[in-house]
């Protein structure tokens, strides 16, 4: 007695499965994989993200005897950008560096899912790790400083684009750089840059002109522009330009990561 189920179990599949169905199914599995394997990490991370976001919003007032509204506004609308970047750009590459050190990296790469599925699932994890903290930071900022915030629907594409650019850049850092130590160093450098050398937390006029110009070539300044434009009613003519620059960074990073991941070893 051989039934149909047993036959298909023995014989290899004769049809290649691809297309949207396969992609969605793989995506759901990968997302579940990430969420389950990182469940503890994600919970701790969310708490840390909320605490650091709120901490930054409240802590900045200690820098001043009396904090000016502009300073409070810039910090409060800049912290969401940092919250969104934290998982994709900073912690993600460090996680991959740890996986490379411990050997689980090769195992994860051996899974039968396409590169776009892996990237999409990871992007979702980054959003899950960033958005709650972003919301809490904004609420606390509003309560503490009573800011003139004006949230427009553009916040949705702004958040998605910022997280996507950060995640893809982090993806490229994690996979396209061979040495885990180098990856760690570069992500540390990125932390430093996003806190102090990119005009995210303070007005661009407070940094030297050449540094502001240099920042035009990097994505962080533009992330701050689109998020801030969506959170305040101050008109900013550089929003379209910012989306374009971010788009270029997304494509370049995804191409670098995709090329490395697609190579045979």
């Amino acid at each position, binding site marked *: 007695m051989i039934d149909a189920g047993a036959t298909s179990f023995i014989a290899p599949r004769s049809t290649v499965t691809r297309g949207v169905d396969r992609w969605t199914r793989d995506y759901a599995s990968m997302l579940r994989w990430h969420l389950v394997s990182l469940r503890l990490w994600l919970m701790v991370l969310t708490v840390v993200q909320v605490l650091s976001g709120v901490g930054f919003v409240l*802590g900045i007032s200690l820098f001043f005897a009396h904090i000016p509204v502009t300073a409070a506004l810039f910090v409060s609308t800049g912290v969401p950008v940092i919250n969104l970047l934290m998982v994709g750009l900073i912690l993600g590459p460090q996680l991959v560096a740890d996986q490379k050190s411990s050997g689980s990296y090769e195992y994860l790469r051996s899974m039968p899912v396409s590169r776009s599925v892996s990237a999409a699932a990871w992007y979702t994890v980054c959003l899950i790790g960033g958005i709650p903290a972003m919301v809490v930071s904004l609420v606390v900022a509003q309560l503490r400083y009573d800011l003139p915030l004006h949230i427009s629907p553009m916040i949705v594409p702004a958040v998605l684009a910022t997280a996507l650019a950060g995640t893809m850049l982090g993806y490229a850092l994690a996979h396209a750089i061979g040495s885990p130590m180098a990856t760690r160093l570069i992500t540390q450098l990125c932390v430093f840059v996003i806190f102090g050398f990119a005009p995210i937390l303070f007005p661009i006029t407070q940094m030297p002109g050449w540094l502001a110009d240099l920042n035009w070539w990097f994505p962080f300044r533009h992330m701050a522009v689109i998020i801030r434009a969506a959170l305040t009613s101050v008109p900013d003519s550089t929003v379209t330009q910012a989306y374009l620059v971010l788009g270029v960074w997304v494509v370049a990073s995804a191409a670098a990561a995709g090329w490395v991941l697609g190579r045979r070893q």
Partner: protein
Amino acid sequence: MTALSTLADPLHPFETQHRTELRSGVSYWLASMATMLRFDFGRMREWAAMMVLIQMCMGAGMVIMYGFFYPQVTASRALFIATGAPTLALIPLGFVMLPGGIVQQKLEGTFEYIWSMPAPRSAQAASTFLLYTLLALPGTALALLVAVWRYDVPLSISPLLIPSALACALVSITVGYGMALAIKSPMVTNLVCNALIFVVLLFSPIVYPASQLPVWLLDVHRVLPFYNMAVVMRAGLTSGVETQVGASFIVLAAWTVAGCVVTAWVIGRRR
């Protein structure tokens, strides 16, 4: 045959020689430390230059970066940033890079390997302390130079700076080392370090006057090492800004002892 017959035991030619050696005493400890120092430096050599460079960039970078947060950098703000910068350059090395290095060693298994070596563990720890202190100094000095250049701050350097800098380096490295050893899970170590550096960079009166803090927070800082590090460093760099350094030195000494005790306790245990 003649060569062999001169040895006491031809089957185990080296064993007898080693057994007669005394494995204790000051000279043995110093020799072990020197060997460990060579071993640690040898392992680190590939990254030592890079670490010093990062340390220098971070020190100098923080000096410049704090200025960006202010619409105007007034003379008193500049003085606080400039004299806080060397302290800020010392803290990440002890509280972030050193524990990070230990985490890496634990993940790779090197940590256990080093412990299995026939050198006193106190000599192994001392070699790490020394090496990291040496790595910390260039960044600290550069941070100060950059601050003077960027903000044009008048400093009056007193001999107090030498004990101050040593105390700060020591406290940061001993506490960081003790923490990295005492916490078993590498992930928790990472988390604690990152949280700490965050608290230090934002909520500690290192680059701004302590009077801007709420009273309760200042009271907390009086017993934590960070504010006291800033006080003794500032006292060595200026005259008249910080007058009460005795209490700060006592707190720093207490933290150094605590770090050493934790380290001694962890490395002295059998598993």
